[in-house]
């Protein structure tokens, strides 16, 4: 318990520093966000007013303080001279370019990213572990060689290449799948599933390769450990040893990698979303970058960092459950 609290506090500190860095860096951008928001018929007076509503006229520290405060207690943004916009907790900022709070933008985009991450991670974990286990148990056979070849190939391929090739084959040539995109599974489950197949398989193909390699290497290493030999010598059946000891020991590092990969992915599968035209968090962020929509950039980067930090903490906790050797103080 004390360990958990310490980890949480540590995560909080990391997030605070990340947010300060992100905030500081992006608010010294060469482009003037007020000028971009001002648009047509921009008079110096209107510009000054926008600077005021965007709060660029405040010192950086003040701006940052308000940003942090907004996350915890919400805040109000000014629009024009009279209009006020409520931004409820957790307020990550307000995008004047799209007239929406960053939180609501993220909320709109999160389901698409979650869809990709959930389906793909189940698939890659399953395929990766299975391939790795078979490979390790049948070491040196043709199955192992095939699996290793697949793993090496997958680890050397790129989403933006494989994605296009699969689209070319399954969408354009064979007409088996619809063009990838996103519909809510609650509106059209079948459509959602069909459109997600390509992103899932592409991601899973590339990532399961890495997991297969990790699993195989992990299992082989554990199998050569003395205690496994002892277990065998004691007369335990081979499969029992494999399941009880080998897999359990080998899976620990995989949990780590999986947690970190998932954390990264939840913050926005930037390239996957780009290749398959899926309006998720990654697209939100890349669009914000090209529009120099600062509040959205800061908000999405913060949100992604949040997932990574949380994933780190969860991984550490899982570690203690899975690996009895790790004892937390």
């Amino acid at each position, binding site marked *: 318990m004390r360990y958990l609290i310490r980890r949480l506090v540590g995560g909080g500190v990391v997030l605070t520093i990340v947010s300060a860095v992100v905030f500081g860096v992006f608010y010294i951008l060469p*482009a*003037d966000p007020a*000028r*971009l928001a001002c*648009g*047509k*018929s921009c008079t110096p007076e*209107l510009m000054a*007013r926008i600077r005021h509503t965007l709060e660029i006229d405040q010192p950086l520290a003040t701006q940052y303080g308000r940003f942090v405060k907004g996350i915890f207690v919400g805040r109000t943004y000014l*629009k*024009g*001279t*009279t*209009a006020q916009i409520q931004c409820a907790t957790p307020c990550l900022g307000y995008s004047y370019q799209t007239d929406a709070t960053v939180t609501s933008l993220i909320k*709109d985009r999160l389901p698409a990213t979650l869809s990709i991450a959930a389906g793909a991670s189940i698939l890659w974990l399953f395929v990766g572990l299975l391939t790795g286990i078979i490979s390790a148990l049948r070491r040196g056979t043709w199955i192992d060689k095939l699996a290793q070849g697949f793993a090496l190939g997958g680890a050397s391929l790129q989403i933006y290449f494989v994605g296009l090739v699969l689209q070319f084959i399954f*969408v354009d040539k064979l007409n088996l799948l*619809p*063009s*990838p*995109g*996103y519909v809510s599974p609650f509106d059209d489950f079948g459509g959602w599933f069909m459109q997600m197949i390509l992103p899932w398989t592409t991601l899973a193909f590339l990532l399961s390769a890495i997991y297969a390699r990790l699993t195989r290497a992990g299992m082989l290493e554990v199998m050569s450990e003395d205690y496994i030999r002892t277990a065998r010598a004691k007369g335990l059946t081979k499969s029992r040893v494999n399941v009880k000891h080998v897999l359990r020991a080998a899976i620990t590092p995989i949990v780590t990698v999986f947690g970190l990969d998932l954390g990264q992915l939840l913050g926005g599968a930037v390239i996957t979303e780009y290749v398959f*035209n*899926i*309006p998720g968090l990654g697209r939100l962020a890349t669009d914000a970058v*090209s*529009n*120099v*929509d600062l509040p959205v950039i800061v908000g999405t980067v913060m949100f992604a960092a949040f997932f990574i930090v949380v994933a780190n903490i969860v991984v550490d906790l899982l570690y203690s459950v899975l690996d009895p050797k790790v004892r937390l103080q």
Partner: protein
Amino acid sequence: MNIHRKAGLIGSVAALAATAFYAVPTATAATANPSWVGPAPVIKGAVTGGTLNILNQGDFEHIDPARNYVGGTLDFYRFFIRTLTQYRTINGKTELVPDIAADLGTTKDQGKTWVFKLRPNLKYEDGTAITCADLKYGIERSYNDDILDGGTTYAHDLLANPTDYKGPYTTPTKNLSSVTCSPKGDSVKFDLQQATPYFPFVTTFGAFSPVPVAHDTKQNYDLHPWSSGPYKIASYDRGKQMTLVRNKFWDPNTDPLRHNFPDTIKVKFGFEQNALEQQFVSDSGAAQTGMTLDTEVVTNLATVSGNDKYKSRFFAFNSPYARYLAINMDTVKDLNVRKAIQCAVDLKTVLLAAGGSAAGRYANSLIPSNISLAYRNFPVCGRDVKMNPESQIAAAKALLAATPNAKKDLILAYRDKGVEPARAEAAQQALQAVGFTVTMQKLPRAGYYTAIGKRGVSGEPDVIQTSWGFDWPAASGIVYALLDGRTMLATDSHSNYSRSNVPAIQTLFEKADATIATAPQEKLLGDIEQKLIQDYAAVVPLYIETSNFMAGSKLGGVQPDGGYGTISPLYAWLKK
């Protein structure tokens, strides 16, 4: 003349169709035209009923008439917004017609004051009468652009403004005295800052539409503008969907340009370009009874254009956009160097980089050939660019050789968007082939037009790749904005990106300002444009872009709109 507009929106603003003809209003014409009375001309084969689907990538920026400035939306929102005047396109012919007005306006002082008669018996969606006071209020609220951002600024720029008038929200006690209703409320009078012969074009914009004070919810009016047209908003879930249903108080006999064939119109947002294109190509799902208002949806021209399978559903027509290179006359002072640039640029590789002849047509002028009163087909660098678009290498080299100490290091600015980098590279190649050294200045999408208008800054570009879509189909909507140096500031060229400010041309502009009738003014503006291109080499026109759209197979009545250069849903009907 203060035609100051949001350059950032160029590329989405008004346009005209290839076959369109513009009935230019003569300034004194008052005679009522029988075609100005409703109902709108019959559309052959059209039947009533069904649901029309409109599938868009993103939500409308704004549908509040005071705030919208996007071509596709200007076209679409005519379903529920009526303006003083409006465009009507029938059988490929586009003309300006009175909408809530009963005529196209009359002026007795060469365009400084305008009087429009108003149509009687018009009603909103709740059955209440549309009054002249509502029209005036609609104009007034467009002054409150701190709250109602977006939209055109023509009312503010052209009307004689009372001191410190900031709109009804900020200055409720003040009166926009330059707009006056007749005692009976059957006509409206506008006092302008100066003679503006093209004013009836300007009144097609949303600021010149009636808004009932009682229903004005300020910035939230954007969610439900009170309908004066054949449909009203039944529901609008921002970012997701909008549903329009019939407005039973709209009377076709009062409307010379609108129909209401579908029972329901559903607008859905949040499609991705590729997925949308795929849906239209395969004619599947909602796309079968649908269309999109987004430009640049059909990108895979190689598959679609020229394939008979898609012919009946594929629309290719002149978009509003003239793509061109502005030569910075501040930094490239030598006429021969500017002419050498004009000769060197290879229109062929430029258009190929944009996608070839499916993407546009070579242009010698920034005025599209449809604007017949102003357009003329003159040679650029001694050749007809339509027959001979290739680089004139020898001519360019000769010009450079004849110039001692010619400026040969050029900075070429371009926007990082779509095919624009490839086009800029094509220009770079051609310029380098004649002996220039070209440094590429790639600028981000956001703020591009602000950046290229900055004068006297370090690294100011010598050649600027840009484009223009005009707000109304006439030379007055192009030449004043792009080539008039009189309103230019020392730090900001406005949209005069070539910074042209030649005294001899200024005299011509003054002459054009003073021209009473529209036709002679159009001719004078055509002269000015030809001179600036031929004699001063201020710009290199590249091509007039073609718009490519697709619609579903079950839709009839879909056509390019001459007023906005978009594909119009206004007469769409559903095949049984």
